[in-house]
């Protein structure tokens, strides 16, 4: 044993690369930081929630713009509708449904975890997978129903 302090636990025979030898010879677990932490879906869910809040804020600005158009008469309303029906508008619209469903599912995950529940590895992973992939499924379904019922023509 060359280390001055042998580290307890599984550090010595660890093959996962999660332990590093510090300059003083100690074997310590790698600090969790964005660039040196093995990817896990919980991290993605956490980062996506902040991104969702930022995107949802942009969505509310667009929504207030739509309210202004609706309150400004049929011409302004038609202009706003024309943008929403354009290819760019449809992409933005799909993004906004993605953000809305992310907000609901990821916000739900955050609230559950905030109460101290769902923090076992298995539960946290399941909740995060729902929060990350659920919105994609729901948004695609939402737009399929919108086009099938003729509310939106692509």
């Amino acid at each position: 044993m060359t280390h001055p302090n042998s580290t307890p636990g599984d550090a010595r025979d660890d093959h996962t690369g999660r332990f590093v030898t510090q300059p003083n010879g100690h074997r310590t677990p790698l600090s969790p930081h964005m660039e040196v932490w093995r990817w896990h879906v919980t991290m993605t869910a956490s980062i996506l929630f902040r991104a969702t809040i930022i995107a949802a804020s942009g969505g509310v600005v667009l929504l207030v713009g739509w309210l202004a158009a609706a309150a400004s008469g049929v011409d302004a309303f038609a202009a706003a509708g024309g943008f929403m029906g354009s290819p760019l508008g449809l992409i933005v619209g799909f993004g906004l449904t993605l953000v809305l469903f992310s907000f609901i599912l990821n916000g739900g995950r955050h609230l559950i975890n905030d109460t101290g529940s769902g923090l076992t590895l298995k539960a946290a992973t399941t909740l995060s997978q729902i929060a990350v992939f659920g919105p994609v499924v729901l948004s695609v379904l939402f737009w399929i129903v919108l086009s099938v019922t003729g509310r939106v023509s692509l």
Partner: protein
Amino acid sequence: MSGPAKFRNNVKISERHGAGEWLTERVLLAALLPLGVWAASSAYTLAGASYEAVLAWFATPLNAALAAIAILVFLGFASLAWKVIIEDYVHKPGTKAALVVLLNLVCLVLAAASVFFIVRLALGSAPLPAGFGA
């Protein structure tokens, strides 16, 4: 700076402030989850709707009230969430304080504008800029 640490249920409670904002953020988020489901169903109803249909939707008091509540609760939540984001990434005290003031101004303007437009739509007011010199 502060007195002896206070405990509740053997858990140390915040010595100054901040816990209140944390809790407020969670309560607002909890309110936003059902409001978000309602927003999704409203988006489905209003997608591709005619101008007359949109006006009729806003003329229903429940729709107009929930729309205003949803936007106001979201802006309250967003102001706290953005404050945390600013505090995470901006470390110069002056810049940080200025950005938080700016953030709250933007949220207040958005809140006032959305309530103004929703009330006009709900009351069936003449299209803007009626009443503002036109």
